[in-house]
């Protein structure tokens, strides 16, 4: 990504030293998108691992009965994870 960000990506390109203007294909940005797609897939995998490692502390026994926070937290994590995986491979 850093290489692409510091590369000449115009078409045509102008070479002042040679006083030449040359048409080429440096504008092709697909290699960056492939790297980005791979990074997204890897991040989704990391999210999967992270979701499985989630531990929600149990509530103190002396609190009044409350909705099952553990369940809803896992539900939300599942939803976010599902979306992450879908976005990563879209």
């Amino acid at each position, binding site marked *: 990504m*850093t290489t692409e960000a510091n590369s000449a990506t115009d078409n045509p390109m102008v070479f002042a030293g040679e006083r030449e203007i040359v048409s080429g294909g440096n*504008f092709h940005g697909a290699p960056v998108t492939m790297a980005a797609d791979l990074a997204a897939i890897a991040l989704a995998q990391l999210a999967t691992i992270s979701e499985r490692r989630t531990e929600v502390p149990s509530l103190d026994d002396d609190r009044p009965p409350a909705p099952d926070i553990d369940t809803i937290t896992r539900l939300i994590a599942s939803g976010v994870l599902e979306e992450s995986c879908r976005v990563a491979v879209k």
Partner: protein
Amino acid sequence: MILFDGNSLTFERLVAIADLGEEVGLAPDAVARVRAAGAVVDEQAAGQAAVYGINTGFGSFAEVKIPADSLERLQLNLLRSHAAGVGDPLPVRVVRAMMALRANVLAKGFSGIRSQTLDALVALLNRRVHPRVPCRGSVGASGDLAPLAHLALVLVGEGEVWDGARAAPRYTARPARRCSSSAAS
């Protein structure tokens, strides 16, 4: 201040410009390179030979030579015809990143841009004038023609810019159209 020189833009610097509004400028050696390349374009544009992108049509008209007295209109029409993206406007931070990336590439001195035009792009960043760039229409494999055309139109006094207010987008007649959205920062 971060100086664009076409060689030293890092992720950290890009984020500083896009999100933190870090001031930007052009490195002195970059200015010299840009001027030298611009002179080559002026020279070739004045000549008789057909040079792609300088005095020809584009795409399937790449072989068609455009007469010298129509070159200014050719370049203007190029921007207008390509500014046809669709979808919601990109968030301001993404537009700022686009502007910074483009300024950096232009600073390498292989593009033939006039140094005044590059100065104007840098000024847009520093004065927080952000073009409205639709999010769909980039094909990657052929540059970012549509998104960049929306960006560049603002440099010729057309197109749309964010005004930063938190109202619904407004699309009024050009030139100097503005649009507003909560996505602006």
